[in-house]
């Protein structure tokens, strides 16, 4: 049996750390930073975390089957340059098709040929990032107004970013908790061999997870490009590893079988609050990396206390 042992909250992986961390950050900032509760700041945080929230949900799917996809950031970059290079109505379908292609490549490599997910997605990350830079070497270009409106507009006085988040969370929840597909992901991630003996097909769902993860990168890329209103070939770079960090902070076990939509979202919020806190308190942005690294190590150690013996 794999490491997928249910803890306090079963297979959701939620625990004191993943639930407590965002609350602690929230309380610290509420008392420590003056402007934290301003409408402007809250909107700002929401804007900042939307792309990561979408990508983290994609990463969650891959993590549940014991995989990892660090190429998802490159999918964002590629999407961004495609959007400013092609006509408005062709660009989005082309980007989605490319997303499917990247995901299929990753999935076939990992699920059918048994390549280690890190190596497989490292290869596609490098390749796709290179492709993005070949298409457009620097930031710029004009983004179709529809996309800018979709990312920056308001509906019923609420910012569009909120709707993007809600849609992504709803879709991920439906997949994981509503459909058979979701339950089988938990089964495959826990022990693929047992799952197969129970008559669950393993390769198909694995492949699908990688495709969906790459597509989450495309969607996040569409959103980000619209928000910034410019194409940028290096836009996605931090997202590959940030999404893994967010998912890990949210109690998702990278060995598979344990994790939740709520956890991945809370992990994203924690990361968002750290960045926001740095801004509000006027701390050097480079300190963000130092803090995130420490936090990740502590959080994982606390979640896996038994396994590492503390």
């Amino acid at each position, binding site marked *: 049996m794999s490491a*997928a*042992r249910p803890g306090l909250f079963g297979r959701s992986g939620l625990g004191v750390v993943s639930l407590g961390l965002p609350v602690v950050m929230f309380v610290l900032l509420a008392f420590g930073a003056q402007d934290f509760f301003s409408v402007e700041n809250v909107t700002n945080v929401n804007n900042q975390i939307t792309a990561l929230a979408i990508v983290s949900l994609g990463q969650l799917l891959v993590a549940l089957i014991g995989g990892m996809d660090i190429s998802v950031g490159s999918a964002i970059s590629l999407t961004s340059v495609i959007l400013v290079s092609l006509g408005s109505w062709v660009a989005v379908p082309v980007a989605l098709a490319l997303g499917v292609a990247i995901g299929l490549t990753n999935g076939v490599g990992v699920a059918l040929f048994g390549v280690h997910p890190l190596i497989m997605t490292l290869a596609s990350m490098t390749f796709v990032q290179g492709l993005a830079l070949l298409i457009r070497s620097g930031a710029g270009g004009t983004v179709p107004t529809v996309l800018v409106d979709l990312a920056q507009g308001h509906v019923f006085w609420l910012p569009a970013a909120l709707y993007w988040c809600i849609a992504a969370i709803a879709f991920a929840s439906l997949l994981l908790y*509503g459909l058979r597909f979701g*339950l089988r992901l938990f089964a495959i991630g826990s*022990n693929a061999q047992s*799952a197969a003996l129970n*008559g669950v*097909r393993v390769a198909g769902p694995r492949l699908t997870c990688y495709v969906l993860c790459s597509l989450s990168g495309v969607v996040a890329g569409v959103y980000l490009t619209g928000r910034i209103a410019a194409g940028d070939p290096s836009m996605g770079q931090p997202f590959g590893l940030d999404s893994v960090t967010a998912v890990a902070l949210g109690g998702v076990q990278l060995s598979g079988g344990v994790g939740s939509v709520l956890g991945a979202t809370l992990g994203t919020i924690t990361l968002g609050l750290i960045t926001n806190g740095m801004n509000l308190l006027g701390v050097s942005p480079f300190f963000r990396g130092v803090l995130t690294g420490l936090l990740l190590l502590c959080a994982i150690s606390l979640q896996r206390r038994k396994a590492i013996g503390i």
Partner: protein
Amino acid sequence: MQTHAHAPSSPVSGELGIAVEFCGITKQFARIAALTDVSFAGEAGTVHAITGENGAGKSTLMKMLAGAHAADAGEILLGGRPLLVANPAEARSAGVATVFQEATLLPNLTVAENLFLGREPRRNGLIDRGAMRRQAEDILEKIGVDLNVNVACGDLAVSEQYLVEIAKATAQDARVVIYDEPTAALDAQGVEKLFRLIDEQKRSGKLIFYISHRMGEIFDICDTTTVLKDGRHVRTCRTAELTRDGLVALMVGREIGHLYPPRKPRPAEAPVALSVDDFAPIRGGPAVSFSVYRGEIVGLAGLEGQGQRDIVRALAGIAASPAGEARKHDRQGRQTRLRPSVVAVVKAGVGFIPEDRKSEGLYLSLSIERNIGLGMLRRAPLASRAQIDKERIRQLMRAMNVRARDARQVVSALSGGNQQKVMIGRWLAAGIDVLLVEEPTRGVDVGAKAEIYRLLREFADQGGAVLLTSTELTEHLGLCDRILVVRGGEIVAQLPAASATEEMVMRYALLGRPQEGPVQ
């Protein structure tokens, strides 16, 4: 042994026709025959025991029926129609349900989810969790198991998990149900439930294949018995026509062959090399006491999984917290207590050759000379220059008849037999005088087998001592000087190998000590 736990078996059986027929089934794994031309039939409405010694092919045959392996030749007829695809899902939908020996439950899924995994009830395309819970409760109630279906299976006790496993197999509308050693994981109450359930299944016209080598169970609940030996079909008959002794006799009986080197009579004053006192691999578990003398090969025999492996591994320093004492005596008579640490055990002069030499013993990507040379460096401090005596390695390779291009050949390219020789060579180079060996000839062809036997015998003749486990009875009888029969973690008999017979060893392995012998 459960003798009264079952409901009375129905007198009439076998009127419902043949449910499963095996026709000339042949299967090899890595060129070693697992099954050869096995043909027999199972009738609907009967409980059919599949029995035989370790490695007789019982589980392999049943796994083929369950779709986990494909046959190399022959076919399986299910209700007269051939089972075409070797695929667990296909076999399930064709009406074969299996309760596997190894748990296939997923620890992170709830009882209800595990019961319905692969065929979850749906409403409007979504999983219908309410229906799933209700149906799961019904299934458990039907077999008399009281469990909360919303609990994750990883949180259940082992015997509860096994009951869920049984519930899962019975939940599907199967025509054939396979139980593989089902009572191993159950307590008395669980066994009673299981037997009642099997009786119900039988009455409803199902065919139940029951893999077991527990005599009591076979004679209590099985209508028909099939005996396999070395992958061949020996006999299928009504259990009522058999006696316990007759069944044991069917399971054994093989030529010992000329593979084994001659034994020398052990001198009466041979010094002790390894003494084991009230030693339990797991604290609180069953304990054993025995000694191994210089010049001697001692075998731990018994059915698979009776604790032989645990004893050897605990002596090798792998178990976390064994209880009791084990001492190594060197040639000068000094004693060293074996602590539960591999490093300390090796330092005391005891070498361990694991069953899975590829993943636990050898460094597959390194050359022969490095693999053997590592043994020479046993006493060298970590920071010293790694000097390997190449002449000594060449001598060893010649003496052991290692077939390789030269000493620099990578070990992964060697055959199983030559790899095992390298493994032995490492300990010879290290100057070790007690060897603990698991399955000395697993995955080794016949020619190399004889050479490995000769090496072990020479090692003993030069004053070494060997303690080994083996699932091959003939190996115990042919190679060893003394056989210790292990059953339930305890040593139930000690036999001189020269006068022991397969039947004697099997009788102790199956039935235990004579005083608790054939219970009727």
